[in-house]
């Protein structure tokens, strides 16, 4: 059970082959093996949301998933979502609204927010607050983040009437 496993997966569209210990979690794999340090580790037990990434299109806490579980999967991190431009409008709204201060929660927050925006076209403030309730931010007090997500939702509706 402690011998390294071989895994093959796609990370941000690139194929990755690696030997990993069974105990290695996905967050540490991304950060330490692939140097994708935009995935942040805050609590290491699935509470704070800083390590949120997408696996096969679903958001997961990468500290709660083992790297070996990603065999054959498609993993997307904040670096990938930034480079494809998928969340460029959301990032711009965060910038305009100053919806980040220290920025440590921001990658996870953006990915969680994008997940909501993909599922629902018209989330109200309460719905946004509820969806982001698993992502801890100590700096902003959340209001600016809620504003930025709400502004993005409105803008996306405007683009796709």
């Amino acid at each position, binding site marked *: 059970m402690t011998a390294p496993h071989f895994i093959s997966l796609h990370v941000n569209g690139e194929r990755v082959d690696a030997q990993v210990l069974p105990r290695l979690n996905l967050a540490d794999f991304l950060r330490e093996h692939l140097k994708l340090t*935009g995935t942040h580790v805050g*609590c290491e037990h699935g*509470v*704070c949301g800083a390590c949120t990434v997408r696996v096969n299109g679903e958001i997961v806490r990468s500290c709660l998933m083992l790297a070996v579980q990603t065999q054959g999967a498609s993993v997307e991190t904040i670096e990938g979502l930034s480079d494809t431009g998928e969340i460029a409008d959301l990032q711009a709204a965060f910038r305009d609204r100053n919806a980040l201060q*220290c*920025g440590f929660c921001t990658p996870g927050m953006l990915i969680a927010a994008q997940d909501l925006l993909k599922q629902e076209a018209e989330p109200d403030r309460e719905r946004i607050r*509820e969806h982001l309730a698993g992502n801890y931010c*100590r700096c902003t*007090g959340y209001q*600016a983040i809620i504003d930025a997500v709400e502004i993005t939702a409105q803008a996306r509706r405007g683009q796709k009437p």
Partner: protein
Amino acid sequence: MTSSPANKQALSELDRPNSYIGKVVPRPNLDRLMQGRGLYVSDVELPRMAHVVFVRSPHAHARIVGIDASAAKRMPGVIAVVTGEELAAVITPWVGVLSHLKGLKSAPQSAIAIDRVCWQGEAVAAVVAASRAAAEDAAEAVEVQFQELEAVTDMRSALDPRTPVIHPALGDNLAFERNLDAGAVDAAFVSSDEIVEAEFVFARHTGVTLEPRAVVADWNAAEARLTIYQGTQAPHMVQNLAALHLGLEESQVRVICKDVGGSFGIKVHIYADEMATYALSKLLRRPIKFVADRVESFNTDIHARDHRCKGRIGVKRDGTILAFEIDDLTGIGPYSMYPRTSAIEANQVVNLIGGPYATKNYRARARVVFQNKNVMCQYRAVGHPIACSITEELVDLAAAKIGMDPVEIRRRNLIADDAYPCASPSGLRFELLSHHAAMNKLMTMMDYDALRAEQAALRKKNIHRGIGIASFIEVTNPSAAFYGVGGAKISSQDGVAVRLDAQGAVICQTSITEQGQGSESLTAQIVGSVLGVSMGRVRVILGDTDQTPYGGGTWASRGAGIGGEAALQAAKVLRKNILDVAAAILQSSPSELDIANNAVVNATDGAPRIELRELARIVYFRPDTLPPGIQAELMATRHFVPREYPFAFTNGVQASWLEVDTDTGFVKLLKHWVVEDCGTLINPQLVDEQIRGGVVQGLGAALFEKCIYDERGQLTNANMADYLVPMSGEMPDIDVGHVVSPTAESELGAKGAGEAGTAGAAAAVSNAVNDALKPFGAIITEIPLTPQVILTALKRI
């Protein structure tokens, strides 16, 4: 909700084409953080870097009988296991006292415990390995034999003669005591129509920065230089202390601070494990990385608050407050924290009680005691939430006793807006505050009368909502009076160097630091405004003791007011220097020229004369074409520290509107308002977001946050699932308004804004809960206001 500056005069010189002061502009470099391309210390990797994990005490108080590291040393990847005694060969212990806090005492503290541990979580040994995982594995194999000692945990009995003395050499467990008696307190209580007293209880809580504390220390034996990568608010302080305790010159220590994942006062101190990491790097001659895990964070990041305070207020039937009296007790753990000490919070409580009010009669006693719990020290809004809650809850209790509206009693006692300058009974000097203007603005923003009507209507339907008001003052822009006079080498001045580069862009080096407040933005805004350069052409460098001028950093709401003024003055000198050389090139005179939109222009009609890019090209590459005797100086440095007032006080008022479910004890926050006065607003959006973030930290203290220790000194909720913090679902929207009373200490006129939100939020919530519970006759003077506390007060459980 931002109002225009009341004092236009102070800013008129800056009202220029590229003026960014007072405007909402996005912070530079947010893309880096939003794309996951920042560089936090936890991201830093260096060649030959090893990882340290600390073996920590499971006991609150124990003798270390023996440490057997032989099995651990044989484990894969292990480089060294180092005990406190072994590490003492390269680092000296310290004592957290300051001479201006008279009588403050503490015991020597080592980087790693030697012979004895004094709190659960104190490091006993360091395990250094090739990876953090390998170090963690080996740490479990280090066998430490402890002999458990009696733990002193309850601050109330810490001074009893039967209680063991934690540090026998100190004689007792009293770290510090301060007494104050101003005016004629006894006579004032005798002439009071009503006297109200209560005991206030404030839980221990902590900062919970999302990025844990992290250090990479890199001793280069060949250079004889230590480079420390650390998320700190005060790089030069770290430089000074690392050098002092490692026996180095400050020039041998470089502190680099890139992105910091949350700070809030947690990262303004020096922790034993950080000192140990510096020392391990020197001992092992290689880079060593320490990143606290979340359990370590809860057990070793400073805790704060934890006060029990008896308070008393005397009031006339017409609402005049005649006197305040308090007796405060706080437990600070086994050591006074280094170097800022753990007596500052209690000292601040004594200073700040009754601060917004004209009352002259005030007596206080504060006692600070040792205990076998984690260390306590300064966390955002040091002392303010305690003082504000006690004062504002006493004022509400007095108002209720004489049947007066809470706003009315405040209006009758707040210091008049035309009474400045003046001083408080504790000796605080106020330059210019605006309590009444702030209250008036708050009333309009929240529509107080309509809210009272709504509250009354809902009460008939058995819905219990409350309104809570809290006026406050905040200490900002501290001079040397805070630390320097007590002997700490923590600079109260800051410096900024500004230079025009060879393409006419601006590079600015500042000694203040960035943890997300917007230090970089405000510096660029000020420099761009003064120089007439667009903000995109101003680059700000901070957080590097090799690169920036010497200064204090960012803490105590000082960055904008002190570092901002230094930036303003440096930019003014550079502007003059640019115009001098422009006049020489253009055969004009400096007074006929101005700078706007990145070009030298005519002062009269604004017509462009020469682009800064072209001016820089001439200065740097064709100085031979300048008139004889002209030596351009396209770099200027200025420093600033306030001299007239020890602190620039700000003021404001907060209000909370909430609903209490009297069946479940849950509190639902519906709305929160803040009006505050931090003088000149450099970037209103950044100020508002500081206020909001600060409020939410205060709301956490009010409703959720508590480090729960058992009677043996074990922290029982040291993880983020059990230690509750505010999450987005429970937080209200927060409206922020401003009154603007610039300080005349600086040309900029800015005071600090980082702690105002935290100062008054809990007081507003406490008053609102008590207001909601008025029909039940329940009064609660304890936070956090958990369902259990509320249901107990309602006698439901």
